[in-house]
């Protein structure tokens, strides 16, 4: 084990020396990164510009416009009580709500949940990983607890936590992030243990640099690339798990327009109106695919060896 660690650090070091100036250029040239980030950019624009994309308030409904097929014409009642003409691009649901508007607004929820989940998991994972990697006495107990968390299937932790806390945006984000924390902690810990042996860290120690400064100034910056990659994958799984929770009826409250909620409402009428599930489903799949492609591309271009480590 000691040998392979040594070998890893040697080869990483030599790779970094060659690759440093061109790392960003390689990321930019990567096809997966290009496709993934373009699609994501488009989705971010959709989320930001939602009110101007021919949508209506996603909570509006009109009993007269129930169960319209995609492209159907109908009316919708505004909050002021006026009836306005509206084209239901993706049809309407059993309450007469516009699926298109709900899907477009759902982009906001999914992107926010994905990014927040990744940030929360990374923040806790980095803090715990740095502790485990630097404070030897904490290492054993902390990592055993992490092993325990990892032994519980992630989705069950999320479901149970949301059941206890009841669904809201912060609770759903934290519930999805918690099962991801051990993986980040392990990654950061292993990176810290490798980087600690580097000559520049030894030099810093021998110069009497305080431990916290070594952690923040010398060790943390070198963990950025693998963490960005890991964060991308957490974002993808966060978006998926949120949709699953909402779909099962244990996620965000049904009045919030999320892809999972739209699909959950479409379940009862799936035989006649499969598009109620397929439109949000396609958005969801494309989003997760784009994030995964971005992650794959970043991994391949930033550090080819990481494919094996993660």
């Amino acid at each position: 084990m000691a040998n392979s660690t040594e070998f890893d650090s040697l080869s990483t070091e030599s790779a970094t020396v060659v690759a440093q100036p061109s790392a960003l250029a390689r990321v930019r040239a990567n096809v997966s990164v290009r496709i993934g980030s373009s699609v994501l950019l488009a989705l971010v624009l959709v989320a930001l510009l939602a009110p101007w994309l021919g949508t209506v308030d996603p909570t509006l409904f009109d009993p007269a416009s129930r169960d319209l097929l995609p492209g159907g014409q109908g009316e919708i009642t505004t909050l002021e009580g006026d009836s306005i003409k509206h084209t239901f691009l993706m049809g309407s649901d059993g309450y007469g709500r516009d699926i298109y508007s709900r899907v477009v607004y759902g982009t906001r929820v999914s992107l926010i949940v994905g990014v927040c989940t990744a940030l929360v998991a990374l923040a806790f994972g980095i803090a715990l990983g740095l502790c485990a990697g630097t404070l030897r006495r904490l290492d054993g107990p902390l990592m055993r607890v992490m092993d325990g968390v990892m032994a519980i299937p992630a989705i069950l932790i999320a479901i149970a936590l949301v059941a206890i806390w009841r669904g809201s945006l912060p609770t759903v984000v934290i519930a999805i992030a918690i099962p991801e924390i051990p993986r980040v902690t392990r990654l950061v810990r292993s990176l810290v243990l490798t980087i600690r042996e580097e000559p520049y860290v030894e030099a810093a120690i021998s110069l009497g640099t305080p431990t916290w400064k070594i952690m923040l100034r010398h060790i943390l910056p070198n963990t950025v690339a693998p963490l960005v990659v890991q964060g991308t994958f957490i974002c993808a799984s966060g978006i998926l798990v949120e949709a699953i929770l909402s779909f099962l009826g244990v996620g965000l409250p049904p009045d919030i327009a999320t892809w999972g909620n739209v699909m959950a409402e479409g379940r009862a009428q799936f035989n006649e109106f499969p598009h109620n599930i397929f439109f949000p489903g396609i958005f969801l799949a494309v989003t997760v695919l784009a994030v995964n492609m971005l992650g794959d591309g970043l991994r391949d271009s930033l550090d080819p060896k990481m494919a094996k480590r993660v």
Partner: protein
Amino acid sequence: MFSFLARRLLSTLPVLLIVSVLVFLLLRLTPGDPAAVLAGDTASTDQIAQIRTHLGLDRSIPAQFAIWFGHLLGGDLGESFYYKAKVTTLIAQRLEPTLSLALITITIAVLVAVPLGVLAAWRFGGWLDRCLMGFSVLGFSVPIFVLAYLMIWLVSIKLGWLPVQGYRRLADGLVPYLSHLVLPALTLSVVYIALIARVTRASVLETLGEDYIRTARAKGLPERTVLLRHALANAAVPIATVIGIGIALLIGGVVVTESVFAIPGLGRLTVDAVLARDFPTIQGVILLFSFIYVAVNLLVDLSYVFFDPRIRY
């Protein structure tokens, strides 16, 4: 070997203990009266008082854990106040559908993924390889319930080949049993296939670069023997590992699949228990699934000896 077995078995005990502590704390550290939380929204005052005495909730947290853990060791997972039955009984009733679904899924996944992975590695960079890599990214990204509905729509509604939903017990006959399980198992196996095929491809690719492969080819062995006896056999350990790790993915998938296909298994029980806030049942199911996950990975560890005779414990 026996000392290894003993050590490996002992090493899972701390993990199981920590899992138990976590599942215990999950409910005790929530605000409010744990007895009321445990009993769920449908419980009466009598039931809440009964739980309080049964679990010793007036004592300290460690003492409460000791009582709860004692019950657990005695095979008592508590009582569901929603179903008015013992959690162990509920789980036993729901075991058959879930086990059937999981076993059929694993069988399909291994039978499809391993040959695909080997072929992709064999013709590295070819069309099959590129298709497989594309498929695996797609397999990780398409949500399982979207895929499930796509399958139902295509196979059951449009083509009318298989029943839409539901479950028949094995005792009702093999054909209805299988016809109700094929579609959910196929749906569930997609992610698993993506995962196993990817790892198979990577590890076979690595062994194909070894000297003994060149030797085997040089002495004129048929390509089939080279691939199966030399490349795949030496790549078996990472494949077995990923099958074990993938069980976590499978358990998550079971929860969703059973819900979509209306299969009365443990996954469905989990969702129903969460919707009813039936905490003893939630605790029981989480513990069971986690223990299964740990046990499967223990078996995988032990299987290394079988796959790689060089590993001797």
